[in-house]
């Protein structure tokens, strides 16, 4: 009896739940007017203050769609096409000794509440942040800016404390930059650090429509006066995307499912297998950076094997080189990315302008580079790696893998170091190591073992690369275990609490050859004692006088000067010789697009914008998309 009643109740509940399929995906918003982007899980959903710390959720469209600043660099662009003047009417204007920067602003730009944007907003932004040390850009402003003044409504002049030819990069967006604050809003606020800025006034083409207090989604709506923005005034017709929905679509599996269910137009990142699944099962309705294998967008970042130079025996260049020569990069590529990796032998990511500025010109130098193993010299560079990898993936991907070497190099990288156990052994012996059976002993006679730290599933491809490399080293006689640091990864790297790790230590503009983006922080002035926290990004604590000289020279060279590339090459050559860390590849991000509702996504063939939804350049993609018919 009881059982029957129970079954009936269960059926009744099920029946009332069923009609879900008939519901709109987003209440009250036509699906065909909305672009749905994978966003973060906002911890602080009510918080829209970009300038105070702990925003946490600023990748939910706030900085991408509503904030604005002077300039943008498209990390996938090259040459002048990569540079965009946003709020600024022109490129920065420095005085001769780089102690003063003048910025001319565009006219006719308005905040979304109808107040006009002026130089006062810029001055307010800088002065307020200097006055409030907790604010996001307070520190760099404090360090650099003596004073700032609005010469007139459209002109701002920054007086710097010391010469700095790269001061403008504070206002230049790759991922983000110092966004301009709405003076008329913040001047009424007691404490800009604790003000949640909800709802935010927008300086760009979209404004807040609604958000989830639980942090799962934020919806942005095209401004009615979208033309009165720096991005809108360049457009000839209205953007077709009326709503942008940043939604936290859950774990990687859920993301794949959601895209296949057409509930997620833009994915930020998934594992290669998820990508392949989408390509296999939803190829008709999806597009990617590369039309076929390897699909992924190479970010201008460089995952590398980092050595802690303050720990023995990694201060020894021969040891580092030996470890590099023990790596079979083809296995690393297959293991981490299933072959879809864009390999890098130079210590700069092989993306954007770096290919034409550094990789192509330096091929000959690489090919002729000689390494003294103590047992004779070898030429370790192997320029055929891309072809070898192509051969490995062709059984799976067949015709989508081109034959043309140049194309293959764009896909898989230009070349890498050939695995050479003999040379590695020679180098280790040169460094005083001995081999006992299949176990290398350090000069002091103890076994050479390594703990290789990876962050873990936050960056699955790097964790995979770590396990592969650990296995290769172990097989060559250096027992290596993988250590998953999880959330403590950042701090352990910063504190120098690791032997060897896999992480980023080099990031570039992508769209500009200047390496100061990361190189400035490599100066030996900033190297900390073991145990103290090293400021980003010289996590290996590599110290070299030649490096210092390059950095110092770069500070006095104009951003767009050709000397920038020369200095860059010097650095790259030095990095090859010293092998301070082993560059592996560009960080390839699998970010497929659903074309059911929108078309016109950027791609390798048309890299008009970066594809990562967290990158602020994304705004150029959003306004360019066309509704699918």
């Amino acid at each position: 009896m009881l059982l029957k009643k129970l079954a009936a109740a269960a059926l009744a509940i099920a029946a009332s739940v069923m009609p879900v399929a008939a519901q709109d995906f987003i209440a009250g918003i036509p699906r065909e007017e909305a672009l749905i982007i994978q966003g973060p899980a906002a911890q602080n959903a009510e918080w829209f203050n970009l300038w105070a710390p702990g925003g946490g959720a600023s990748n939910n469209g706030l900085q991408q769609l509503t904030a604005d600043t002077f300039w943008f660099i498209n990390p996938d662009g090259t040459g002048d096409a990569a540079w965009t003047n946003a709020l600024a009417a022109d490129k920065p204007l420095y005085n001769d000794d780089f102690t003063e920067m003048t910025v001319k602003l565009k006219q006719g730009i308005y905040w979304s509440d109808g107040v006009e944007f002026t130089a006062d907003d810029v001055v307010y932004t800088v002065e307020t942040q200097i006055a409030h040390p907790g604010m996001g850009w307070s520190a760099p402003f404090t360090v650099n800016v003596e004073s700032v003044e609005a010469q007139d409504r459209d002109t701002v002049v920054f007086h710097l404390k010391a010469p700095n030819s790269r001061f403008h990069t504070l206002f230049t967006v790759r991922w983000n930059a110092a966004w301009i604050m709405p003076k008329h809003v913040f001047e009424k606020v007691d404490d800009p650090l604790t003000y949640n800025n909800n709802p935010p006034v927008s300086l760009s083409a979209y404004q807040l429509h609604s958000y989830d207090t639980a942090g799962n989604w934020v919806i942005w709506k095209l401004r009615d006066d979208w033309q009165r923005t720096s991005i809108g005034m360049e457009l000839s017709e209205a953007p077709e995307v009326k709503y942008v929905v940043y939604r936290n679509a859950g774990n990687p599996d859920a993301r794949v499912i959601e895209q296949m269910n057409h509930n997620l137009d833009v994915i930020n990142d998934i594992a290669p297998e998820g990508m392949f699944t989408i390509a296999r099962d939803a190829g008709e309705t999806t597009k990617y950076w590369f039309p076929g294998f390897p699909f992924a967008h190479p970010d201008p970042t460089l995952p590398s094997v980092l050595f802690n130079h303050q720990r023995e025996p990694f201060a020894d260049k021969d040891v580092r080189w030996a470890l590099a020569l023990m790596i079979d990069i083809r296995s690393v590529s297959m293991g981490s990315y299933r072959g879809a990796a864009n390999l890098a032998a130079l210590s700069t990511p092989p993306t954007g302008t770096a290919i034409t500025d550094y990789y192509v010109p330096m091929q000959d130098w690489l090919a002729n580079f000689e390494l003294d193993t103590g047992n004779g010299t070898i030429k370790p560079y192997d320029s055929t790696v891309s072809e070898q990898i192509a051969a490995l993936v062709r059984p799976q991907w067949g015709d989508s893998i081109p034959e043309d070497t140049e194309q293959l190099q764009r896909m898989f990288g230009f070349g890498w170091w050939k695995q050479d156990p003999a040379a590695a052994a020679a180098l280790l012996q040169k460094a005083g190591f001995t081999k006992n059976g299949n176990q290398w002993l350090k000069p002091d006679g103890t076994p050479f073992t390594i703990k290789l730290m990876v962050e873990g599933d936050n960056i699955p491809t790097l964790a995979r690369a770590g396990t592969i490399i650990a296995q290769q080293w172990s097989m060559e006689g250096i027992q290596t275990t993988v250590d998953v640091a999880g959330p403590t990864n950042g701090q352990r790297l910063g504190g120098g609490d690791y032997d060897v790790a896999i992480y980023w230590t080099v990031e570039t503009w992508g769209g500009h050859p200047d390496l100061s983006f990361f190189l400035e922080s490599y100066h030996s002035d900033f190297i900390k004692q073991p145990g103290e926290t090293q400021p980003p990004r010289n996590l290996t604590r590599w110290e070299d006088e030649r490096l210092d000289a390059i950095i110092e020279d770069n500070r006095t060279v104009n951003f767009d000067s050709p000397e920038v590339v020369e200095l860059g090459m010097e650095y790259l050559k030095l990095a090859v010789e010293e092998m301070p860390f082993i560059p592996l590849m560009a960080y390839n991000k699998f970010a497929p697009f659903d074309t059911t509702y929108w078309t016109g996504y950027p791609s390798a063939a048309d890299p008009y914008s970066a594809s990562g939804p967290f990158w602020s350049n994304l705004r150029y993609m959003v306004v360019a998309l066309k509704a699918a018919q």
Partner: protein
Amino acid sequence: MDGFAKYLGRRLFQFFLVIFLGVSLAFLITNLSPVDPVEQSVALMTNFGATDPRSVELMRQALQELYGLQGSMLDQYLAFWGRVIRGDFGPSLSAFPTPVMSLIMSALPWTIGLLTLSLVITWTLGNLLGALAGYYRSNLLLKFSGAAVMALHPVPAYIIGLCLLLAFGFIWPILPISGGAQMNLQPGLTLDYLRSLIVHGTLPALTLVLVGLGSWFISMRSLVSNIVTDDHVVYAELGGVSSNTIFSQYVARNALLPQLTGLALSLGNVFGGAVITEFLFNYPGVGRLMIQGIYRGDYALVLGVTTISIIAVAVAVFIIDLIYPLIDPRVRLS
């Protein structure tokens, strides 16, 4: 009344002791954490920008002051108790300056809703099935469902959830697989919103139900098979009392009493299933909040969530303890 007063007194003491020990333990563990919230924040803020190393030191000092991390551990501990009593866990480090309490308060209703719903279903269903299976030992349908429940019992929560997600989100996509309610739907007591809540809660709740069913089923079945040999049941059978009455009034009712205590005692474990389920279905509850807090090294948040969980569980246990005498006359009247 006297017995009840004594009972109540003991429970109340227990209640405060749980909170005191639990909160102290959580504080201690959290403070031994190697994660320095200031460094985490510095890392967070400098990760994607071209921050000048010279600026980092300035930033660090500013943050140290902001987060109120000065003082000895004892100072921090005492200050912490002061704040717990005021219901203030300080600002979240990863969502600065939003108070931890407001983060928890916006997540807590989701978890409480999900847990209450699934726990009620699990407990009722598991006990009902277990009692039926223990009483009607030869019923084939019950044997079959018993076997199914037993087979499900050892399957990890994550796998059950993942299978449900695949089945109802992908292969037969009829249910949402992420979030707590439909996007852009105004929260409120509208039919649409309630339906949306139910629809979004179905898969997570189902996961928790399937995960939890087994242990209630097993323990209830064994309780019932013991109770059916008790004198009062045998006597009722000899008295020709109908088997429905015997089942409901003589067997199930008596077996439920220890299960109610079990419910109170097992509440502490419920969180485990909820953490993984919320994580999987992206459900905006405190479990997910906690995981995010850990990933971001937000120790104020983690400490707050743990503390609130301990208090919430203690309160729930206390409430069940209060209800218990109403159901068991022996406690009420002794």
